[in-house]
Every structure is written in structure tokens, then in C-alpha cells.
């Protein structure tokens, strides 16, 4: 290491190596899928941006995970404070790496895709945009210890997205920023760096205002709230439920509530201004995947520190059964996540009438007509933008589909959605655990699965387009799902046997999982029936594919305790 700058860059590289590879791979595959779909430039760029620009930040990993995974705000390279390197140099170098790496990933992927598909993708403007966004998000996370700033600031990064969406012309894939826009982006970038340097200087000096935590009103509020929900001492299960709620569940619900409250606000104030309308629209559209992505991971509570992932000794030495602990962690997180999603959905549904201010009276009569479409819709899109049309069309479609259902069908749908959330949360928790314990093997398996899925997707698209040897491609596409299912059954069987042998799962546990699977199977069939699909109408091969989701739940029910036992007993 010849200089502090080189050392800092090297450290950043080491911490984000694997992530770089995964993002490049995912970006290439996602972008390919988007472009293959004809007018998929928007899709491709969005995928690229989500990989490189906006969501998963490597700084989040440096800081110990995402929001509720023990996310420690502040400058992650605090070990540099005792070294003879200036704050400006340290912060500047790290931020430069963040900005540059984002740009490099995007440019590499976009250039590759452009060459492969002969489609041009916007380069320079997006590169500038990525620099500004990443510097902004880095600033928001590093400059201060305050979580309020981080949540709000990260949310405010959506403004960057609005700017992008409103300046993009996807018919001819270009993004034209005006000189004012470039000025704003540059200002945001410079401001971010300046504020971060100032903030980190304060942290380095050990500013007394930073040292006394929770002395302010927020701390007292949290204290009062915590007092409302004391830890039950009557039974270990209740105590563990309390623990899961306090260590993450409540935060999920609060974030859901905050988003739910922001939605009607956004709808109400955004009347005449196009950009604000887009902001409100993106809030509604992105809240769901955002919550599923940010709030549904790491239910096991694995911690990260300086690049190392570890399970908390405190958690793993409580005298509580592994299977029950894994299910409690997953269920509490899933229920809280479901509650957040319900709050956001209800809020969005109820706030739709607030979009009255977005359109004229005549246009209002149009959108509120359940059967509107065609030239009337087109006229509104040209006048005020597509947001309100999309929202109301979705509203009408949902109303017709869901509210037309019988009571028991609606119940089955709810059950199914809940089970889907549970499956998602438990899969992510299990994968996180396996990634920690068997890092290389899991990454290898994940890479193989990713490449395999990509090739399958490409094959299916080529079959649909009529490119290449249709017969062979068709045969492969037919056989692979069966092979995958066989592998899943064998793998699941192994896990089940191993868990049973190690007494992680007892017969009672397995009975509970079987019961859950039967319930989910019944709900799935009811919902299928409501959609007009019955078992008799399907050919034999498709029956298996329809039942597969049920097997998924059974698999996650068994995989989750086994994965936790792997990290509890290394």
C-alpha cells in the first residue's frame, strides 16, 4: 500500500468484490430480458438503475446491513480516525469509490448490452445521474448518526428518480437533462460531499452532541413507547415474541404506517405540478416492492461488522428450541410486513379520490368510469400524464377481480398472500444463513441457478420469437422444470431427513408444517377456481406445476429451522 488513498480504495474493493460480480451479472441478465422484449429499453434501464443506482447500496453492507438489520449509521471506516489521514481524504476517496463504482457498473453493463442487441442506451446523462444519487445516499448514511435523517433522506432520493423519469424519452432511448438539471445534479453531488466531510469531521472529533444518545425528544419518545410494551416474563415464547417485535417488527410497522400516512399527503398536495404527481405515483408503486425488499430480509437477525457476518451469541444461547425460534422470527417479521403492506394498500385505495385535483371535471368523470379506455384514456395521458390513468385502471381491475369474489374466495386470497409473504421472508432468512455458513457453496449454487434461469428465459423468449431450433429449445424448456422439481424434492428430502435426525424437527413440528401445506394447498385451489382454473381442465403435466407453490411452502417450513440450526451449531 503506497498511500492512504490506495489503501482506502483497496479496502472498498475487498468489501464489495462479490457484490460487484453479482450486480454486474444481475444487471446483464435483467437488462437482456428487458431488451429482448422489444420496447424494453425503459425496462432495461430501470433494472440497471435499480442494480447500480438506487437500491442496494454497498455502503449499506459496510454499515452492517440494511435498515433494520442492525444498520449502524455513521461513517463505516471509523478505524481510519486514528490513522494519519485527513478526514477530507478519507471521506473523499470512499465517496469517489462509491460514485465511480456505480458508474462503472452501469457503463459496463449498458455498453455490453448495446453492443449485443444493437440498441443504444443512454450513457452520459445516466452516468451523471448515478454519481449524484450515490453521493447523495452515501451522504445521508455517513454524515450523521441520526436514523431520522437517514430514513427521510433515503426517501428523498426518490426525487432523483422523478427527475429521471420526467426527462426520459423512451421512444427514442435518450435522457436529456437541461443545463439546469445538470447544475442541480452537480450541486447535489458537491453538497453531498461537503456535508459528509463536515459530518464525519464531527464524528471524528467526538462531538459531544453526538455522544449523548437519546437525550433529545426522540429518545424520550422512544423511551415512553418502550415502556408501553414491557417484556413479558410469564413464558419464553411470549418473551421471544416481544424480542422479535422490538428488534425489528415494530420498526417495520412504523415504516409502513409512515408510508401509509405519506400517501394521501402526496396525493393531496400534488394537484397541479406534474413532477409532484409523478412523485406520488412512484411512492404508491414502489412502496410495495420496496417494503418487500428492504423490510423482508434477515429475519434471523444476523449482524455484520467490518465485512464479517456473524450470528449473535446472545440469540443462539437462549434455551429455546431451534425450530420454534426460526418460525417465531419468520412469522413475526412476516406478520409485521403484511401489516405494513395492508396499511399502505388501504391508504392508497382510500386516497385515490384525492386525485380529483389532478384532472379537470370531465377527465374525472372519465377515469372514475370503470370501463373507460381507448381514445378517452389516451387523451388524458397526453393532457396530464399517465399516472392517474394507471392508478384508476388498476383500481377498477382490482375491484372487479377481487370484490367479485365470494367471501371464502377472498379469505383464501388473503391466506395465500400471507403465505407468500411468509415464504419470501423465510427463504431470504434461510439463504442469508446458508450464505453465512457455507459462503462459497451458496454463492456457487446461486450463480449456477442465476445463469440457468437466465438461459431458460432467453430460450423461452427465442421460442416465442421463432428464433433458433424451436424443437430443441422447446424440449429443454419442457424437461428442465421437471428436473428442477426433482432436484427440489431430493434436496428437500435431504434437509428433512437431516433436520429430523438432528432432532431439529420433531414429529410434532413436521405435522404442523404438513398442516400448513394442506391449508395453503386448499387456499391455492380455491383461488385458482375463482380465476376459472380447475384441476380437471389442466393436462396432467400442468397439475404438478400448479401444486408446486404448495410444495414451496412446505419446503420453506422445513428449510428455515434447518438453516437456523446450521448457524446455531456450527
Amino acid at each position: 500500500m503506497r498511500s492512504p488513498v490506495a489503501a482506502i480504495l483497496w479496502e472498498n474493493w475487498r468489501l464489495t468484490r462479490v457484490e460487484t460480480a453479482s450486480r454486474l451479472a444481475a444487471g446483464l441478465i435483467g437488462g437482456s430480458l428487458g431488451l429482448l422484449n422489444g420496447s424494453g429499453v425503459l425496462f432495461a434501464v430501470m433494472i440497471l438503475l435499480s442494480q447500480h443506482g438506487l437500491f442496494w447500496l454497498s455502503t449499506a453492507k459496510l454499515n452492517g446491513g440494511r435498515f433494520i438489520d442492525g444498520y449502524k449509521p455513521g461513517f463505516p471506516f471509523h478505524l481510519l480516525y486514528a490513522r494519519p489521514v485527513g478526514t477530507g481524504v478519507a471521506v473523499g476517496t470512499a465517496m469517489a469509490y462509491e460514485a465511480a463504482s456505480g458508474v462503472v457498473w452501469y457503463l459496463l453493463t449498458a455498453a455490453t448490452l448495446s453492443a449485443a442487441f444493437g440498441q443504444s442506451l443512454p450513457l452520459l446523462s445516466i452516468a451523471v445521474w448515478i454519481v449524484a444519487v450515490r453521493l447523495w445516499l452515501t451522504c445521508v448514511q455517513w454524515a450523521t448518526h441520526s436514523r431520522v435523517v437517514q430514513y427521510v433522506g433515503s426517501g428523498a432520493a426518490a426525487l432523483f428518480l422523478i427527475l429521471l423519469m420526467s426527462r426520459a424519452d423512451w421512444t427514442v432511448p435518450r435522457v436529456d437533462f437541461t443545463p439546469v438539471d445538470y447544475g442541480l445534479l452537480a450541486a447535489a453531488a458537491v453538497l453531498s460531499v461537503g456535508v459528509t466531510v463536515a459530518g464525519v469531521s464531527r464524528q471524528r472529533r467526538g462531538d459531544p452532541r453526538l455522544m449523548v444518545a437519546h437525550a433529545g425528544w426522540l429518545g424520550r419518545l422512544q423511551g415512553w413507547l418502550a415502556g408501553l410494551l414491557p417484556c413479558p416474563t410469564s413464558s419464553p415464547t411470549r418473551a421471544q415474541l416481544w424480542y422479535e417485535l422490538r428488534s425489528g417488527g415494530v420498526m417495520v410497522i412504523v415504516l409502513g404506517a409512515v408510508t401509509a400516512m405519506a400517501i394521501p399527503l402526496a396525493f393531496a398536495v400534488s394537484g397541479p405540478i406534474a413532477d409532484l404527481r409523478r412523485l406520488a405515483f412512484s411512492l404508491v408503486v414502489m412502496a410495495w416492492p420496496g417494503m418487500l425488499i428492504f423490510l423482508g430480509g434477515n429475519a434471523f437477525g444476523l449482524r455484520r461488522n467490518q465485512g464479517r457476518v456473524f450470528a449473535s451469541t446472545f440469540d443462539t444461547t437462549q434455551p429455546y428450541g431451534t425450530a420454534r425460534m426460526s418460525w417465531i422470527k419468520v412469522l413475526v417479521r412476516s406478520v409485521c410486513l403484511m401489516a405494513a403492506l395492508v396499511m399502505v394498500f388501504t391508504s392508497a385505495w382510500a386516497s385515490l379520490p384525492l386525485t380529483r385535483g389532478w384532472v379537470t371535471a370531465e377527465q374525472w368523470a372519465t377515469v372514475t368510469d370503470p370501463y373507460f379506455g381507448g381514445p378517452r384514456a389516451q387523451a388524458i395521458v397526453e393532457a396530464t400524464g399517465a399516472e392517474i390513468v394507471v392508478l384508476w385502471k388498476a383500481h377498477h381491475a382490482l375491484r372487479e377481480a377481487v370484490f367479485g369474489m365470494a367471501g371464502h374466495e377472498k379469505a383464501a386470497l388473503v391466506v395465500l398472500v400471507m403465505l407468500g409473504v411468509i415464504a419470501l421472508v423465510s427463504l431470504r432468512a434461510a439463504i442469508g444463513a446458508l450464505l453465512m455458513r457455507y459462503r462459497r457453496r451458496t454463492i456457487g449454487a446461486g450463480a449456477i441457478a442465476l445463469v440457468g434461469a437466465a438461459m431458460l428465459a432467453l430460450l423461452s423468449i427465442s421460442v416465442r420469437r421463432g428464433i433458433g431450433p424451436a424443437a430443441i429449445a422447446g424440449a429443454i424448456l419442457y424437461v428442465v422444470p421437471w428436473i428442477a422439481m426433482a432436484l427440489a424434492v431430493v434436496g428437500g428430502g435431504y434437509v428433512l431427513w437431516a433436520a429430523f435426525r438432528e432432532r431439529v424437527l420433531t414429529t410434532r413440528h413436521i405435522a404442523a408444517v404438513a398442516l400448513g401445506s394442506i391449508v395453503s394447498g386448499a387456499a391455492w385451489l380455491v383461488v385458482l377456481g375463482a380465476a376459472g382454473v380447475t384441476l380437471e381442465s389442466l393436462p396432467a403435466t400442468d397439475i404438478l406445476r400448479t401444486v408446486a407453490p404448495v410444495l414451496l411452502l412446505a419446503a420453506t417450513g422445513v428449510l428455515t429451522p434447518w438453516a437456523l440450526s446450521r448457524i446455531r451449531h456450527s
Partner: protein
Amino acid sequence: MSRIIVDVDGLCRSFGGKVALDRVDFRATEGRVYGLVGSNGAGKTTLIRHLLGLLRAESGKVRVFGFDPVRDPVRVLSRIGYLSEDRDMPEWMRIGELMAYTRAFHPGWDEAYANELIGTFGLDLSTRIKELSKGTRAQAGLVAAVAHRPELLILDEPSTGLDPVVRRDILDAIVRAVADDGRTVIFSSHLLEEVERMSDHITMIHDGRVMLSGEIEDVRRHYRRSRVRFADYFEAPPRLDNAFSFEGGGRTWSVIHGGPFDEFRASVVSLGGEVVDSRDATLEEIFLARAGRHEPLEAA
């Protein structure tokens, strides 16, 4: 015949090709204090983690209260009080919540004892764990570990990095656990003086192997520090039976040695020297002699 609380037999464990524990034997009977010493990274914490079921044995057997901690984690952990080396506790919890949470898992929780300790240590139940100093963290962790009167108390480096006041608290807790309740204590420490005072039995681990294991007095009696004087001048340490380390030079040497004293004296005399004086070696001297860095000597 006292109950055997911990029975470790031929335990082997490695991490990524590097051997962490090599055929380790360890037995603990009821009502006694067991000290574990060893250099950093020698394997003390690894052994302790096996007792808690956090690690699986690659070969060999680990039994606590007669159960395998990996197969029966609940039965074993419910009777153990554990203070980890890094005092790992959820940062967001307050001390009062930590007590309530721990209490829910251990029906044997003694509220009076907990309150007494909290009062003695002066802990404020409403402070968060992330705001605590190192010493206070250790105190909070200690209360949570001992207040439910566990049959086995496992303390991993309880005194390391703590001021003498908190160290005293830790030692008091150990004494009370053993004297009042006849419980068993296993603790690891770098502070050899403390281990010497507080242990009934000592196990020294070096490079994953058990270097010595026995009652404290037997160990101390076995090893002696003798001053020897030779007629001749020696450049390098002379070859003496059962000698582990040498200090000094030329004619006068100070030797740490084991085995029967007569054998040692005979070998001194055979080289033309005499034993000037001799006493039991301190634990620190034994440790440095057996685990310290020095030129390889004749196998002892």
C-alpha cells in the same frame, strides 16, 4: 461420588484446515471451580463454545449434564449461565428489559438476588446497553448470567479489560455461586494470579492441545523453580531432566522444571553443579515456561 457436570473426551475441531482443538479432554465435577488458561487463540473460547452447543465436534464427545449440547440445546442451556467474551447483548435493550427477558427463559430466576446485585453494582435499569461502558456491560451480563442460579456458570474471560472494582464483583459472584449453591464454575482468564486463587482445578491449553491439567496444588507442587550453580561456564542452557525454561547465564541459572525433584537434582549434580534453592513455581512461571516462546528444549 460427585456428579460429572461436563465430560469432554478426545474433542477435535478445526476451522478451514487450521486445527483449533486437538484431542482435548476436560472433565468437571459438581461444586468446583475450573480455570482455563492459555494464550490468545489457544482454544479456550473454542472449547467453551463446544460446551454451549455453538460448535459441533468433528470427532470426540461433548456431554454437559449428560446431554449433547448440539442435540439437546434447550435442556443444556437452561441450566447454564454464560458470560461471553465480547459481552454480546442486544444493543437496543435496556438493562431492565434484559433482566425480564432472561427471566422468562429461566424459571429459577431469583428476583431478590438479582435486585441485590443490581443495587450493589449501581445499575440503572433504564439505560440502554449500547450506552454502557465496558465494565457496566460486564456487570449487567453477569447479573443476567447468575441471577437464575444456574447449575453451571461459564465465564469467558470475565475480568479481561475491567477495572479492579468490577473484577472483584466477578470473583465475588463466582465465590457465591460455589459456596452458597454448590454450583460449578468454569472460567477462562489471562490473569494467572486470579486463576491461581480462584480455581480448584486448572487446565492449560496451548495451540489447541491440553498442556497441563490437574488440581491447582498438584500442578504447583509438580513444577518447581530452582536456582542452580555450576562449576563450569555454560554458553547455552545445560541439558537438565524435565527442565522447561531457563533464565540467567554462565554459571548461575534459574530453571523451571517438572517431575520428581530428585531426578532433576541428580542431573544437575551430574553436570557438576548444585541446587542452591528451590521452591514451587507460580502459575505464571509455569505458563510462560510451557507456552512461552523459547528455543525448543529436550522433550520433557
